[in-house]
């Protein structure tokens, strides 16, 4: 228990220190060492859990509950303060804050809140999440040290508020640990709201109009999702047959008793995981500094949304509400994958793909069989590693080429081979066999086929655009430029540590995934269902074989002689300057310049999003309504 409390409370120490210490170098040391401590502690915790199994802890929570309630009121006051001066059509945001505040006060003093006996726990699933937060979170924090300095060099117009930045990041990490270790619904809700506020502060970091707009957008939609949480707590307080706020007892109670809170929490989870109809907040949140996108909007905070979905998956198994949830996830996967095809902003592509993959997890959670949950947990792991790598890779690239445009990444593999290789590893990790995401997609397809054919169809259709947009991005990176260009600028050691670890993680995940599955994923499913699907060993052997081919090929290519004569590319005979340009009519010389296909009139972002939002809003609403009936 001490370990859990330590993980939740420890990040507050560097958060406080960073605010207090005036000296920049000392602050850096504090950030680095506390990141190392967090990572080490989460690994230690994982080891303990592997050896000892899941544990639930009793805690006399009177004072803690009171502190949390006080903090919630403070947060509400802070949000209302920040909401001053909002235009009238966004006044629904402070209104939501007030509604939540009133509901919380009502619940607190209504005296009906069930007592939580064991508010803290650590099982295999929360340990997996803790590892993601502890390792990827700390790496991102370390990475931000170098990144933020450079960020301000590139954006002199943005006032430097680095201390607030790091304070919020560490508070956020604390809240994330809180979410994954809380067994009490009201604690979960508290930490949930803290992450919402942190996300609000970090998205609005730049204080530009766009940043402000996006931060309020994210705040509003997440507060809306929070209503679902309040609904769950309120139901338990006033309507439940056997009132309980213990998450484990709630899940064990099954669909007959726990459907309403499960649907409410699923609603909150959809908002946090930026599923349709809420997806827009995550796409506009991409204005935030890149480490924020990596940490909050791909590998941890949005994962909290699907974390609760997967947590409640046993409740959803075989129910209408589960089917509706799965449909929301599936449609989100399809629609956002199609939207990603038309994006040329690297971070927006990553954002779309994040939403899409979370949709996949949501779809698996909604179906709720052991097989789909198995696939969902694997998806969460692989996605967290590969996506964090991609986001953190885009950061330095953006500063080198001065843009987030994928088109300008042409030839990265020759201009910055290390960065190019890192991007390629990340992209392969997202969509190509035998890398991580594909292993999980393979498991998901098998699992979905056994439960619902149409959902498997959604997955089949959604995967195709994924292949298209990742492959064309990779194509840009491997295109060899015709003219030498230099993409200069050193990359700090902090960044290399983060990038290197994550790249090795992405590669390692597909080498070691059978063990990861056996040690973490299977116990996690067994804990929830009492039984777990094993891994098809034939499939693993093939995957390892493919990986071997991938590693041997470059080696062979270096070793074997490939006699070749250099010639310029075919330009219908009118190429000049070694194919970098061509001579057109009247002898005018034109530069050769190729652009990727974005098909933006074919897959119109606005049309797709509009319909996706409508359909998914109806489905999500229906899910909540059906649960009450």
């Amino acid at each position, binding site marked *: 228990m001490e370990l859990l409390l330590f993980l939740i409370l420890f990040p507050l120490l560097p958060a406080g220190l960073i605010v207090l210490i005036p000296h920049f170098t000392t602050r850096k040391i504090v950030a680095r060492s506390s990141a190392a401590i967090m990572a080490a502690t989460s690994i230690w915790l994982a080891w303990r859990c592997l050896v000892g199994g899941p544990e639930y802890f009793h805690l006399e929570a009177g004072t803690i509950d009171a502190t949390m309630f006080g903090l919630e009121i403070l947060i509400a006051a802070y949000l209302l303060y920040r909401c001053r001066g909002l235009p009238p059509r966004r006044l629904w945001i402070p209104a939501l804050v007030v509604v939540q505040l009133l509901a919380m006060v009502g619940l607190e003093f209504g005296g009906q809140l069930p007592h939580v006996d064991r508010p803290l726990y650590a099982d295999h699933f929360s340990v997996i999440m803790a590892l993601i937060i502890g390792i990827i979170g700390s790496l991102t924090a370390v990475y931000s040290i170098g990144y933020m300095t450079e960020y301000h060099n590139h954006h002199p117009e943005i006032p430097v508020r680095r201390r607030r930045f790091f304070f919020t990041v560490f508070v956020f990490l604390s809240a994330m640990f809180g979410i994954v270790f809380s067994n009490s619904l009201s604690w979960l809700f508290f930490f949930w709201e803290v992450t919402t506020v942190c996300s609000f502060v970090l998205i609005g970091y730049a204080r530009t109009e766009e940043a402000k707009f996006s931060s309020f957008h994210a705040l509003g939609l997440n507060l809306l999702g929070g209503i679902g949480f309040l609904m769950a707590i309120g139901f338990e307080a006033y309507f439940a047959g056997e009132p309980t706020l213990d998450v484990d007892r709630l899940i064990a109670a099954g669909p007959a008793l726990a459907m309403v809170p499960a649907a409410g929490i699923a609603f909150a989870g959809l908002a946090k995981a930026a599923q349709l109809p809420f997806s827009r907040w995550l796409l506009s949140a991409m204005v935030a500094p890149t480490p924020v996108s990596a940490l909050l909007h791909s590998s941890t905070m949005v994962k909290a949304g699907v974390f609760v979905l997967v947590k409640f998956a046993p409740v959803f198994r075989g129910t209408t509400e589960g089917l509706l949830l799965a449909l929301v996830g599936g449609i989100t996967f399809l629609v956002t994958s199609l939207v990603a095809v038309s994006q040329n902003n690297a971070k927006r592509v990553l954002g779309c793909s994040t939403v899409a993959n979370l949709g996949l997890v949501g779809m698996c959670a909604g179906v709720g069989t052991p097989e789909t949950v198995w696939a969902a947990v694997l998806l969460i792991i692989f996605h967290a590693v590969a996506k964090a790598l991609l986001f953190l890779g885009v950061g330095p690239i953006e500063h080198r080429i001065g843009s987030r445009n994928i088109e300008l990444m*042409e*030839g990265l593999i020759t201009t910055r081979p290390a960065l190019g290789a890192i991007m390629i590893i990340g992209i392969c990790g997202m969509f*190509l*066999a*035998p890398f991580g995401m*594909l292993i999980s997609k*393979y498991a998901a*397809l*098998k699992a979905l*086929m056994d439960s619902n*054919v*149409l959902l*498997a*169809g959604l997955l*089949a*259709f959604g*995967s*195709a*655009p994924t*292949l*298209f947009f990742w*492959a*064309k991005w*990779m*194509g*840009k990176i*491997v*295109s*060899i*430029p*015709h003219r030498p260009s230099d993409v200069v600028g050193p990359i700090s050691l902090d960044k290399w540590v983060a990038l290197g670890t994550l790249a090795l993680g992405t590669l390692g995940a597909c080498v070691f995934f059978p063990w990861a599955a056996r040690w973490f994923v299977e116990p996690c499913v067994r804990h929830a269902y009492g039984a777990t699907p094993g891994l*098809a060993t*034939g*499939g693993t052997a*093939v*995957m390892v*074989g*493919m990986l071997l*081919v*991938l590693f041997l*090929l*470059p080696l*062979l*290519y270096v070793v074997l002689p*490939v*006699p*070749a*004569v*250099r*010639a*310029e*590319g*075919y*330009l219908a005979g009118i190429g000049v300057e070694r*194919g970098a340009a061509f001579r057109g009519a009247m002898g005018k010389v034109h530069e*050769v310049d*190729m652009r*990727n*296909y974005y098909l933006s009139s*074919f897959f119109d972002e606005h049309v797709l999003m509009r319909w996706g939002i409508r359909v998914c809003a109806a489905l999500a609403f229906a899910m909540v309504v059906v649960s009450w009936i």
Partner: protein
Amino acid sequence: MDMTGVGGALLFLIGAPFAGGLLAGADRIVTARMQGRIGPPLLQPFYDVGKLFQKSRLVVNPFQPFYLWGFLAFLLVAGALFFSGGDLLLTVFALAVAGVFLALGAFSANTPYSHIGAERELLQMMAYEPMLLIAVLGLYQSTGSFLVRDILGSDRPPLVELPGVFLGFLFILTIKLRKSPFDLSTSHHGHQEVVKGITTDYSGPDLALIEVAHWYENVLLLGFVCLFFVPLHPALGIALAIATYLLEVFVDNTHARLRWQHTVKLSWWTGAALGLANLAILDLIR
């Protein structure tokens, strides 16, 4: 993997180029006859490839052949997996990796024709991927296994339960075999508007490798077609697969090329209306 599995894989690795080359030769003769010509000898594709291997290799950059090796290697992995009775879903994934390698090779050359070819290749992949997956899922639904060796052991042809899936598969087979009206990425004949698209900047031995890889791919795809007829006599199954190929040649010669918009739309709608609907109905009946 048992001995038959290893045997099957070896048979594919060694035999497929011969079968695929003969198929390509037959294709050219049939095409010629349909156009009122006599056409080349049956062994012409082998002459062509043999000649290409003797020519020198021109490259725009030294990385180009590397991607081709990846293309060929993953086709071999896919085919060996399939013919050793392995997992059909993994076979399809390996095919996708091969396709991506081919596209990357063209991207790497970074010239207009290669680039257009690569983009169109990816578009084609986007077009056929859903239906290809649905075909695999359909075989799973019908026979209860993703393993080719289990599907081979089923007691009635999956075609009986999967007529829609089979038709949908035939549709995308046209794309996979690079036949008109969907030969967007290679444009089939060099003197057309994208020259040779994705293969424009390959020459000599590299081009020969692409050709051989296509033979492997075609044999693998026809093997896939055979799965729909399984418990029938193998000879009959192969005959039906060859008949399918001839049907594709017929379609090839009677259709002009479509635009990519139509290709994507048509194959997605076919996938949904024939493939997915078939799966859903089968699910309801059971």
